């Protein structure tokens, strides 16, 4: 039968699943609202045209990746090293996955926006694009590293350390690319993006929708991780 720790884990997983069920409806409605706001409510941008509407999802994903997920990985890493509780590893790993998905969304939407507007798929001179790219590399490295380690305290410690080291890099990458850009001739300027009030409304709705989605995905991943821990330990005991 289930051991006492198993029961605690399964109960925690249940709680996350309940939270996910509660969050699912508001997240769904917010996403619908964000789609409506971005595609119908927000006016057509005069110079860029329809393609500018990518912007709402692009920023929503960027904000969640950097401002929510990767910051959470950093904090969870510190908490794991401090408290040595497995739950903080689950938190960190879940947020890396979600943040990486958002970074990918941000980079791909950026590509499709930049091609018609800046006439280039990949604007290397833009510090924000390069920052997101480097973040993507860092957290893909995190995932690869994670997958090579066998489960155990060592893995959680090392992943926590890498999550901390990776996040410390964010300001350094931004500053170095920014200086680089200001020295080199400016091929691309991001000016001319003065936002109308409906656009700002659409942007905030999109950011809220993405944040709700983050919370929902987080609860689902946490429940999955807790249940998987129980199952894997059962399997291990049975084979030994």
């Amino acid at each position: 039968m289930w051991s006492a720790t198993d029961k605690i884990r399964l109960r925690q997983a249940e709680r996350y699943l309940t939270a996910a069920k509660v969050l699912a409806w508001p997240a769904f409605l917010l996403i619908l609202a964000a789609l409506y706001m971005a595609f119908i409510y927000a006016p057509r941008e005069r110079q860029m045209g329809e393609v500018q509407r990518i912007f709402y999802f692009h920023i929503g994903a960027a904000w969640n990746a950097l401002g929510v997920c990767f910051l959470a990985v950093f904090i969870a890493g510190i908490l794991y090293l401090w408290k040595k509780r497995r739950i903080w590893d689950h938190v960190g790993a879940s947020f890396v996955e979600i943040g990486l998905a958002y970074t990918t969304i941000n980079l791909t939407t950026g590509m499709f926006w930049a091609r018609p507007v800046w006439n280039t798929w990949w604007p290397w001179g833009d510090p924000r694009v390069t920052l997101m790219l480097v973040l993507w590399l860092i957290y893909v490295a995190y995932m690869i590293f994670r997958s090579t380690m066998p489960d155990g305290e060592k893995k959680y410690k090392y992943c926590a350390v890498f999550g901390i080291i990776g996040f410390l890099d964010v300001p350094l990458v931004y500053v170095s690319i920014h200086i680089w850009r200001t020295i080199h001739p400016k091929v691309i300027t991001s000016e001319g993006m003065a936002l109308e009030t409906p656009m700002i409304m659409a942007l905030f709705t999109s950011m809220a929708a993405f944040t709700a989605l983050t919370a929902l995905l987080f609860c689902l991943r946490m429940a999955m991780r807790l249940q998987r821990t129980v199952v894997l330990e059962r399997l291990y005991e049975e084979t030994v």
Partner: protein
Amino acid sequence: MSILKSLWILAAKDLRIEYRSREAFQTTLFFAVLILIIFQFAFDPGSKATLEASPGILWVALLFPGMIRLNQSFQMEIEEDSLHGIVLSPVDRGAFFLGKFLANWVFLALVGLASTVAFVVFYNFAPSARLWWLLVVELMGLAGFSAVGTVLAAMVAKSSSREVLLPILIFPIVIPVIVAAVNASQEILLRDDLNTLGTWMQVLGVFDVVYLAAGFVVFEYVVGD
């Protein structure tokens, strides 16, 4: 034992081992020189394009062989199980980190110095007083690289796939070092004035301080138990 003393003993131990065998130094330097030459063949040898790209090539030649050294730095501790000895001895983990860092840094700086001589020859640079600045930039860039690399090398040391893991982990993190060091070297080697050299050195300095401090704090969780 004070931190300074123990870090010195640990660094001296690594450097003495290296001095007596000289194995790693020769192979690392040879690899660095090979990179410098291969890039000449990859581009048009002696052309203007190669010259423009040369600061970047120099940094590839400093960092790629450097990675091999970082991988080795914990390997020798594990092979003879001396890591246990160090962990059990009354040495502060932060001092252990600084000692390992210092040994790696001095090693990479010496290889860097020798590679720079080869670089000046193969890329036809006039020996001028400016090259001293290049050495300062190299020292600063390699310090950041060694600080991050020492922590990460300790993390992957026991993994069977460490040879691929270390570059995958280290290069995304050291991108600010590469940007700052290559731009600073470009200015020293190819430009007339040194307007932005100070800015780039500041970036390198901040990177060094951040990752030395981070390594000092987190190393306790990376080795031991």
